[in-house]
């Protein structure tokens, strides 16, 4: 059983709200990202998503776009992200999912990427712009390396594509709560619960719901009908605010405790 499946199994047994925490690798620096990931894991994040900075983050809103720009300006790359994970893996308990656009992986080389990711201790890979119809070759390289391919589903995804993603996915399925790009919102979209219901009809995989989730009440609300909530932009904002400060990692950890427990 993969580290991701174990994390969700633990969550199901505990009945508590699940939290997937996203950060962009290299924001503010690649070494700080390692400290932040450690703090997030120690503070109760159930799964960590590490965003690989990319020049054209099509699915991201302004907050993660800016984080990506800062990280690229600081020299962060896919290779350096994997090196950082490899260096710090032993002190991070939570499973790590790479959240990336497909082009850096194609440039790295599919097979070379999968072996480097496996060696670094990556547990899952989520490709924002690789449609399920095109995902076969990468998926069949990831699975023997014990890396879970994670697929995204949105309110416009048809039942046929939900079924295909459920069939090909491992670890968990990522539900996009609303149409649009990443970014914090005031309310959880009403469409999200209906999407979760549709997906449950096709899959027993755990469901994580992201896009627009930024507060403990959102996390609690989502976890009534899904296994975990994904918080990205709101956490990236905290990191941007404290980026230069020595305690950025502990601030990020505090934010995660607040999200999970409603108090810091």
């Amino acid at each position, binding site marked *: 059983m993969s580290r991701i499946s174990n994390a969700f199994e633990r969550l199901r047994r505990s009945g508590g709200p699940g939290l997937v925490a996203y950060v962009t690798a290299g924001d503010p620096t690649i070494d700080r990202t390692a400290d932040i990931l450690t703090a997030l894991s120690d503070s109760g994040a159930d799964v960590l998503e590490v965003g690989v900075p*990319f*020049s*054209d*983050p*099509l*699915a991201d*809103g*302004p907050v993660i*776009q800016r984080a990506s*720009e800062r990280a*690229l300006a600081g020299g962060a*790359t*896919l*290779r350096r992200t994997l090196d950082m994970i490899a260096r710090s893996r032993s002190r991070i308990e939570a499973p790590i999912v790479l959240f990336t*656009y*497909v*082009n*850096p*992986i*194609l*440039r*790295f080389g599919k097979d070379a990427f999968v072996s480097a990711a496996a060696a670094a201790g990556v547990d899952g890979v989520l490709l924002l*712009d690789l*449609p399920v119809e095109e995902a076969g070759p990468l998926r069949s390289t990831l699975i023997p390396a014990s890396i879970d391919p994670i697929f995204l589903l949105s309110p*416009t995804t048809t039942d046929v594509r939900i079924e295909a993603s459920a069939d090909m996915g491992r670890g968990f399925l990522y539900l996009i709560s609303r*149409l*649009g*790009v990443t970014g914090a919102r005031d309310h959880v979209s009403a469409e999200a619960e209906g999407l979760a219901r549709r997906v449950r009809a096709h899959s027993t995989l755990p469901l994580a719901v992201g896009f627009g989730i930024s507060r403990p009440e959102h996390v609690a609300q989502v976890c009534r009908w899904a296994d975990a909530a994904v918080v990205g932009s709101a956490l990236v904002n905290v990191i941007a605010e404290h980026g230069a400060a020595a305690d950025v990692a502990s601030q990020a950890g505090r934010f995660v405790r607040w999200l999970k427990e409603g108090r810091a």
Partner: protein
Amino acid sequence: MRLLGADVVEVSGGSRTLKDAINEAMRDWVANVNDTYYLLGSVLGPHPYPLMVREFQSVIGREARAQSLEQLGRLPDAVVACVGGGSNAMGIFDAFVDDQSVRLVGVEAGGRSLEPGQHAARFAGGTPGVLQGTRSYVLQDADGNVELTHSISAGLDYASVGPEHAWLRERGRAEYTWCDDDRALAAFQRLAREEGILPALESSHAIAYACELAGTMSPHDIVLVNLSGRGDKDVLSVQAAMEGMR
């Protein structure tokens, strides 16, 4: 665009070039997909956009081929078109793809030089990659980040190229070359002076190369150039460039 009633919104993110405008358009589209149609203006983007746009543009090729047969009594020896995303080129090439005697030549933007960031000659400086839903040749760095581009003509200033062009090139059916800013500007002026036609700066790349190609051919050979756009839109940038050269 404003004359025709459009709201024009400036893009402040990324490198503020065409690719960033496309990123923003796609972000808006995914948020408003229920009531928004994304009109893609080139043979790019996810399937089936490249095929749709090629089909709509192919009228020019069908007409040019029919007129060649009618007015010249034969097919041209070469067809030359500029290639940004490559819609005008796909449109005119498509009717001639099966005519093996006709050379198909696409002309990319050589910009200031072939240094990274100074041009948009994807086949000269790019490698296969995925940008904005299309797998084709992309100007990118060693880590898969998309490089900045430059061309005197906005319509050629893009880091990737229509995937069917990459396929025609790999099949050996079409060939691709590039023309730099200065040669395109000279061709723009030449056509204005000698023919009284203001070509778009994009098309001026094709004209420049067609003139060079014609110099290597026999006087009886025929070169068909796709004059894909008008230069009215370009007079200000041409003026600025000419003043810069003085």
